[in-house]
């Protein structure tokens, strides 16, 4: 009998991962701060698209099992990243709120792959309102004791609400693209972003703007004191191979002394980026 989609997804070898850099955007320069690991489903299926994959997973109520499968795939890839680079991983709040198994699985798995837990930021996503908050905060406390940081994903939408901000004390607010697109020409969107930035600062958190689509919006975010941006405009989600070839990770600070590279700090340059990506694509094309 053919494997079901869920059975397929639960095999970490059927999943793949892309990495999208998160850029620090203050002071006019665009330095890579960290990368978000983004899962793709079984190749060649409708479920390769992450939105479809996770919609299905939520309908199956299989978030916890699939989060483990995704983490396995990400850790396998992350061991090839520079050893000082921070990696963001998405996890459902309900997975952390259900029991502490996921935290133990995470700690065991990063140890197995010789990855330092403090390199990781857990991005909490949630669509269901029935998350067990006490268990969630216990899990977050345990993760924090190992140096893991917390980001609240999709701020402004769904369950990423004020209560989650207070209960989870996230180091990062990830502002959804809905509020960012067209920011520079929309006073109402600016009002929302200003309020989120003010709230984040008051709570001791940083703000990451997602889905920036224009340089004007990017400059507007910078003037509004937003700390980080993640967007296709700066760099799309790309394979590990392309990311390593892109030059974004040449900053010596990302590498342990033994693998330290020479070279100046990488500053975002669109033309340079395009050249690098086309070179990487050329190199990865089959002969």
């Amino acid at each position, binding site marked *: *009998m053919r494997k*079901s*989609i869920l059975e397929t997804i639960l095999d970490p070898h059927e999943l793949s991962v892309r990495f999208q850099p998160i850029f620090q955007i203050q002071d006019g320069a665009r330095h890579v701060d960290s990368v978000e690991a983004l899962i793709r489903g079984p190749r060649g299926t409708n479920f390769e*698209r992450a*939105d479809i994959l996770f919609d299905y997973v939520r*309908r199956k109520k299989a978030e916890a099992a699939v989060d483990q499968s995704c983490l396995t795939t990400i850790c396998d890839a992350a061991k090839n990243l520079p050893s000082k680079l921070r990696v963001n991983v998405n996890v459902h709040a309900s997975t952390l709120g259900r029991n502490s198994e996921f935290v133990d699985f995470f700690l065991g798995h990063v140890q197995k792959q010789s990855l330092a837990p403090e390199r990781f930021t857990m991005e909490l996503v949630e669509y269901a309102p029935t998350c067990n908050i006490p268990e969630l905060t216990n899990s977050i406390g345990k993760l924090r004791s190992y140096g893991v940081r917390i980001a609240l994903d999709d701020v402004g939408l769904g369950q990423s609400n004020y209560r989650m901000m207070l209960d989870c004390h996230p180091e990062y607010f990830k502002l959804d693209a809905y509020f960012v697109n067209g920011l520079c020409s929309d006073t109402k969107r600016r009002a929302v972003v200003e309020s989120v930035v003010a709230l984040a600062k008051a709570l001791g958190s940083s703000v990451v703007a997602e889905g920036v689509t224009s340089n004007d919006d990017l400059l507007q975010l910078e003037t509004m004191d937003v700390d980080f941006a993640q967007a296709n405009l700066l760099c799309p989600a790309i394979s590990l191979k392309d990311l390593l070839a892109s030059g974004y990770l040449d900053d010596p600070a990302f590498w342990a002394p033994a693998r330290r590279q020479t070279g100046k700090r990488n500053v975002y340059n669109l033309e340079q980026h395009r050249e690098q990506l086309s070179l990487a694509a050329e190199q990865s094309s089959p002969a």
Partner: protein
Amino acid sequence: MADRVLIIDDDEQLVDAYRDYLAGGGYEVDCAQELEEAQTLLAHFSYSVVITDLRLSKLGFGGLDLIKHVRENSSQTRIIVLTGYGWPELKAEASASGADAFLRKPMRLKDLGNTIAQVAGGQV
């Protein structure tokens, strides 16, 4: 752009036969083996025609549930019901739930193509 068709049936061999036949006729074909898979595909893609068996006991749900789900979410999608059992009673119930056409299994692939052409205006 080709019409998109979703097939929901628990008989893998039949599904493969339907898919190959319809894909050969220029349709874009997706198949689902379970309710959540079908619901996910229906949420993300626009289907001209949904073909579903009424008795999906292996899959743990009934085709009538799916017909109601499709009808609640799209008035444009045409629904073709396949069944091999309890024909008259189920046909009446499926019709009331919003099914557009019916085929009794086993049927010829050509009949499936003709029925799709009738309900969706396409041809195989």
